[in-house]
């Protein structure tokens, strides 16, 4: 009997997990469930700059970076992958040192600016780092993953999954990539939204990213420039407010005064699915009728979803490995 796999969530985590599985096991029967149009998911909006916040995720970050390197070389823009250079400015030396510890040996050209080099910024901070990294913008990268998935025979279903049991009856392996809703499915109350705001402006001459601390950001996309953001723990309203706009524009214009008259193309709110630690593990469950099925959890990526997406997907494949080898003739 062929193993049937269900993936809950068609964001970057769900799609990456499904694609990694199909690349490893090309004949796998995979169905991806999503409960809303892609444009309404957290994965739609991010500019997707590869950047890491926690040391414990370095291995997964490196695996993702390697993957983006490959896609960039072979496919580039149509996959939404760009090579971008830029800077992070901060008066907080520790913050920048943490960035160094996390990714100096993963990204390209990581370094510290010398004092005289800070003059190139309109309103410099005390310190600055530079590096060259990738962006994988959600609105282009995830649809590219979806196209790949469809080519490999993955099925997509629009349905809100309310319990794992519901899927366990039909599927042997359920991958829980439900992001902000993932906790609900497994009685885990540790997933907390962290509200973010991105404003898209028409400024295609900006070819670099520029941050002040990690909360005032500008990242070029394939067609525009994204500026932002906020990090509001526990807040989940999805409408941008005038207060959001004023706050963000003040900080961004202080960082980049030349954006003063830039035309706004769109505004977007995203809820980062935050958890103290990413949950990536395997558990066996039973349906009410006693049928055993396996659940692999892959959620709680917070602000690093895109950065860790491929590394986590590979970990999903590894966990799934033993299960798939026993149960199928692939």
């Amino acid at each position: 009997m062929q193993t049937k796999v269900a993936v809950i969530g068609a964001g970057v985590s769900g799609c990456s997990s499904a694609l990694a599985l199909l690349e490893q096991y090309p004949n796998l029967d995979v169905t991806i469930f999503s409960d809303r149009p892609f444009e309404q998911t957290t994965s739609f909006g991010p500019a997707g700059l590869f950047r890491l916040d926690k040391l414990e995720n370095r291995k997964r970050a490196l695996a993702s970076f390697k993957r983006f390197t490959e896609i960039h070389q072979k496919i580039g823009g149509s996959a939404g992958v760009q090579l971008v250079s830029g800077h992070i400015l901060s008066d907080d030396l520790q913050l920048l040192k943490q960035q160094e510890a996390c990714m100096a040996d993963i990204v390209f050209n990581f370094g510290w600016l010398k004092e005289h080099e800070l003059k190139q910024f309109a309103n410099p901070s005390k310190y600055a780092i530079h590096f060259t990294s990738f962006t994988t913008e959600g609105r282009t990268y995830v649809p590219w993953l979806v196209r790949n998935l469809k080519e490999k025979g993955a099925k997509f279903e629009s349905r809100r999954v309310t319990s794992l049991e519901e899927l366990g009856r039909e599927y042997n392996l359920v991958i829980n990539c439900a992001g902000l809703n993932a906790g609900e499915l497994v009685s885990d109350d540790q997933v907390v939204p962290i509200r973010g705001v991105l404003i898209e402006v028409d400024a295609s001459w900006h070819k670099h990213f520029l941050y002040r601390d990690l909360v005032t950001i500008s990242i070029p996309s394939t067609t525009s420039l994204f500026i932002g953001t906020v990090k509001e723990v526990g807040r989940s309203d999805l409408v941008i407010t005038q207060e959001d706009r004023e706050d963000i524009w003040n900080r961004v214009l202080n960082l980049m005064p030349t954006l003063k008259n830039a035309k706004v193309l769109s505004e977007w709110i995203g809820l980062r699915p935050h958890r103290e630690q990413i949950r990536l593990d395997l558990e066996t469950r039973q349906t009410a009728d006693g049928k055993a099925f396996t659940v692999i959890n892959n959620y709680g990526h917070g602000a690093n979803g895109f950065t860790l997406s491929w590394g986590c997907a590979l970990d999903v494949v590894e966990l799934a490995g033993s299960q798939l080898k026993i149960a199928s003739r692939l």
Partner: protein
Amino acid sequence: MSVCVVGAGIIGLSTACILQEAEPRAQITLIAEKFSPDVTSDIAAGIIRPYADADPRKELMIKWVAKTYERVEKMALSTPEFGATVISGYDLDVAPVDPKVVWRDCLKGYRHVPKRELQDLGFYDFFQHGVFYTTFSLESSRYLPSLLKQFQQYGGTVRQQKLSSLQDLKEKYDVIVNCSGLGAGQLVNDELVRPIRGQIVRLDAPHIKHFYMFGDDHYVIPNSNTVVAGGTHQYDDWSTTIRAEDTNQVLSANYKYLPALKKSKIVKEVCGLRPGRSSVRLEREDLMIGEKATPVVHNYGHSGAGVSLHWGCAMDAAALAADSIHKPTSKI
């Protein structure tokens, strides 16, 4: 002081602007046959970088590039509407770049590219060495009109006129500044001026955020809305017709190094004639214009380095022009 500047390419426009700054009371008339978007400068991808080939006088080149970089950097911060923007990227080659190369101090963020990066970016099989740096690119479709507008706003006069010789100038000027580029060959009978034809292809590839200068004369440079893939250097070639074989050559080389470009749509092909000369002519010459002995400051022959040198040369040319008022011509 009345000045005539001949030529409205990047050299003429920048020289006229510097002259206005240096001599606010001067009456300056800019005369040119062509204006943007029909000048050679419009074809250029517009990146500031040191050119070894345009002139053998290394120190002078470094000075000119450094002054250009400095001024454009200020413009990028204060007047972004001029179209000068920061850009970073790679110069790649098979041979190692001299670590003591003198012009590196003009540039920001200069460093050698490690092998791992060259490999990961797919370049190592072709180029085993590279440097990365940050410089500026000029969007010529905005830069040139902005300079012209500024010149006019500060009281400069502009006239469209084709000159076959400086004798065609009927007005009396205290000094003439000759920024006629390729036209100087005919205008002042300079046999050293020769065209260096360049054909480029503009692509829709907005995901490219860096410039790439490949050691074999091919390159990819992003502008605001298109990416320039280049190029050719065809000496003494006066043809301004697009050639299919040049496009093929340009694209196949750049596709080899950046395979992802193959999916990018071609927007247009353009070609231009660089004002080639064995060295930049930047000097004063006193000529009889009609019955008047007139100092002429030449500022032409920048080959492919016009963008990289323009402010530095403009400053030197303006200084020579101002000087000429205080040191009038002796009898010719």
